């Protein structure tokens, strides 16, 4: 009974002490969810562009002209016109060379794949397969290469 009288005020004191300064009782404290989001990390970069190469950002509706060294983020798309080509260089150094008339999407990292080929031909290279990996997904298959293959 003694404890029953003491704990509610004690809990209140602990809780109030933990409130940020200037925060009234009716305000919700700022949790970690409200912390500023870290800037997105590019999954890859574009290089060695020839001919007409376009990019569509994940948040954009329109295609725009691509340029070399452009960072590529999750769900961005890149397309090449006939006769054009481009190189997508991933953060681990593996590269995907896009031939003409190709369309690829940069995959979300949580999907355990790196690039989705929707149309056309890509030539993938891992200079150091002992330490690099690359997963290429298409509408009908997934190709995994490299030493650290993430088996499903």
């Amino acid at each position: 009974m003694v404890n029953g009288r003491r704990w509610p005020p004690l809990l209140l004191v602990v809780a109030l002490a933990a409130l940020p300064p200037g925060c009234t009782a009716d305000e919700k404290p700022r949790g970690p969810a409200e912390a500023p989001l870290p800037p997105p990390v590019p999954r890859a970069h574009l290089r060695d562009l020839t001919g007409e190469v376009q990019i569509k950002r994940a948040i954009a509706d329109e295609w725009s002209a691509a340029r070399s060294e452009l960072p590529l983020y999750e769900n961005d798309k890149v397309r090449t016109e006939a006769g054009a080509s481009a190189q997508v260089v991933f953060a681990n150094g593996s590269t995907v060379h896009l031939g003409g008339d190709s369309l690829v999407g940069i995959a979300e990292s949580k999907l355990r794949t790196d690039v989705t080929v929707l149309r056309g031909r890509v030539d993938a290279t891992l200079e150091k397969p002992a330490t690099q990996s690359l997963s290429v997904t298409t509408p009908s298959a997934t190709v995994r290469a490299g030493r650290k293959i993430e088996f499903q």
Partner: protein
Amino acid sequence: MKAALWLSAWMGLSVVPSAPTVVGHEPPEAPARRGSGGSGATPKAPSAEPQTALKALEMSRAAVKAAPNDARRREAEDRLKDAEAHFQQARYADALHKADEAWALLNPPQPSLFTVEVGHDGGTTTVTHRQGPPVTVEAQHATRILAKGESVRVQQGTVLPEPPSAPQPVQPTDKYRFTLKPSAQGLLGPVTLSWAAVEGATRYEVEVVPETVEAGPLPSPVREVLGARQWALPALPAGRYRWTVTAVSPGQGRSVPSTARRFELAADALELNIKVKDGWQK
């Protein structure tokens, strides 16, 4: 008060343990010991699922099969045997580790190159392996491993095509001994190898591996890719040889190698040249 209670709840929920939760009195290092130990009391290491170990084994088996028969391959075979034994005893972490070692032995640093081509309708994918370690192709929960030069075509919504069956060697019969006259260079031949046709195969890869030779260093294995179902071997030194043939299909990939057959090349023991009335008779 309401806000304070909400905060208390939030504080309670936002506690993130800094180390993995250990159930009961098991020490944190116990899972690692399970993976490398031989007690067998707890068969499965949490960090290496059976499926992962199995696929690593598949990769290593393919690498061993494709490797030339040399000291490195034999060493890799030993590691692979260890890996298979670990897997049989459900020590998946150890199986994975040994399979990795076998794979690494046979895959010295070399760039990995492969091509993926998607048809305009998006329904067909063609994967071609060009160089370096094998790649895996997954479709409809089936997996195929492609080695150098192999290609596979996958239709959307269909399973990966099965590889062709292994060819059946025809001639010579196993352990056949050829007795032949040596050439001026001391080589013996010709010997023709033949095998039965395999449905869907358009070419065959034949490998002849010397096991012992009578004189000189062991020559390198002889390999040839043919569209025909027979191969007249180049002249070889006297000795014992083992050969296998693998079927290759453009749409289905490569078969496993055929069962190995052996043959022996022996020089005619003695050649007598006898002078007769009109010249020399052999």
